[in-house]
């Protein structure tokens, strides 16, 4: 067992301390038609991992992009690292976004660049020395187990490898918040497990707060009932009935947030949609 606290289903989840890293109040998002999201309020505390569940097409990715100002809300308030970004000019948002890591659904790697240049993209823009870039890229690729892809082009990678490189790109800058958009979507179970292990490793080793979008319950539960063992350098299951208290859930249905709570509260929820989703 590590020193990290774990709680059984009967214990209330420990409320993480400190100001929220992300806070949304009564947010609504609309494009040309009716609102895609409405009355969305939640927050992400330091060291907290929030799993956003919901069926496909319900607005999970839109919500994730709204958190970092890639999509602007119609109304409501979005705070990132304590700053109100709801109406913040795009230019002022760039420094804030640089403090976050975003893993896109299909990786969104730059096809014309090598894996090295993709992972080091932020560092190259900041004109960091080449030797330091190479060292940090090797370190980030080692973290995701893809050191051999250093000089390869992004187009030569498989779907699973692209996601792992995207994770390396998101982590190289030591982000203060990570956003994962369906990181295991469309992948085989073995590759999905590898990616979940990386997310658990980042959560337990670096305690980086995260917001993770998925519609795969098995991934969400794996995040809750596993921990990363640094000695064995792999993810191990928590004892039966225990789960990570800093991993909590949100659920979207028909553009509204219908659940916000711990795993314990999720499995005991009487909401008809939650029950249907879990079953």
């Amino acid at each position, binding site marked *: 067992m590590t020193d990290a606290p774990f709680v059984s289903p009967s214990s209330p989840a420990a409320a993480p301390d400190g100001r929220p890293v992300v806070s949304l109040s009564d947010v609504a998002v609309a494009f040309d038609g009716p609102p895609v999201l409405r009355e969305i309020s939640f927050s992400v505390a330091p060291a907290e991992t929030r799993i956003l569940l919901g069926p496909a097409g319900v607005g999970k990715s839109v919500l994730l992009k709204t958190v970092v100002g890639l999509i602007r809300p119609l109304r409501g308030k979005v705070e990132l690292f304590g700053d109100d970004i709801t109406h913040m000019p795009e230019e002022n948002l760039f420094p804030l*976004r640089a403090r*976050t890591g*975003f893993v*896109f659904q299909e990786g*969104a*790697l730059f096809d014309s660049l090598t894996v090295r240049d993709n992972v080091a*993209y932020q560092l190259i*823009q900041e004109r960091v020395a080449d030797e330091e870039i190479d060292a940090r890229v090797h370190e980030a690729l080692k973290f995701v187990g893809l050191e051999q892809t250093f000089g390869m082009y992004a187009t030569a990678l498989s779907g699973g490898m692209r996601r792992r490189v995207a994770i390396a790109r998101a982590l190289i800058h030591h982000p203060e918040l990570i*956003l994962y958009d369906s990181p295991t979507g469309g992948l085989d179970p073995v590759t999905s497990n590898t990616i979940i292990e990386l997310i658990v490793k980042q959560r337990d080793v670096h305690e980086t707060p995260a917001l993770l979008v998925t519609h795969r319950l098995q991934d969400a539960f794996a995040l809750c009932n596993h921990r990363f063992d640094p000695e064995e350098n792999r993810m191990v299951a928590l004892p039966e009935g225990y789960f990570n208290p800093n991993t909590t859930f949100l659920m979207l249905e028909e553009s509204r947030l219908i659940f916000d709570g711990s795993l314990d509260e999720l499995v005991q929820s009487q909401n008809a949609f939650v029950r249907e989703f879990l079953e």
Partner: protein
Amino acid sequence: MALNAIDRTAKQIVLTVQEYSLFAGRAMLNLFRPPIYWTDFLVQSDIIGFGSLPIVILSGFFTGGVLALQSAATLSAFGATAVTGQFVSVTMIRELGAVLTGIMVAGRNASSIASELGSMVVTEQIDAMRALGVDPIRKLVTPRIFASVVMLLLLTIVSDACGIAGGAAVTVFLNHQNGTQYFHQAYEHLRYPDIVQGMVKPLFFGYILGSIGCFYGMRTTGGTEGVGRSTIQAVVTSSVLIIFVDFLITHVLLTIFA
């Protein structure tokens, strides 16, 4: 119903013009505020400038040749075939060099810019760039517009030279006239206002093709089909705008130099 449709379309056009103005203005303002991505500017200059060289040389050469053929046929009726050189050089430098190069480069580069940026939009690479804290307007759009402006000016000079050379080739080898006389006429009757006209136009045309290509690329929606649509819109709009702006600039400059 019909009035509503007209009203909606008119509003849509005004909104698009407003969005384009803000977009193109912001892209140009980035030239005066750091960081400026000089490496990207050089890469784009190579793609837009050096890459377009073959089509500009060929189109310029054959346009000059056609001008010499047509003008000699008409001028011979007045016994004035000796002024073919003047006719070709003035027409190429004042008008055709800039317009033809603008349209040729727009066909090649406005389309490639729109499809490249459009593909980046639909695969979330632009969002990824923004999420990484990098301004895509500054990183992708400004270097492309600036490179289009600078390179189109240089390509127009190449096109003018090739056009005059093409006219000379036709005059000497097909019309069997004196080459020295052709070049003497071509040089002797050129005035500074002619050169100014020929050099001012590509600055506007380069800005049009670069900014229109980027604008349609960056507002792509609807997946790969949308990329195709953006590419067509970029080529059509930039080509029509180049001809329209050519008319306006010519009118203004002729008034100034009258």
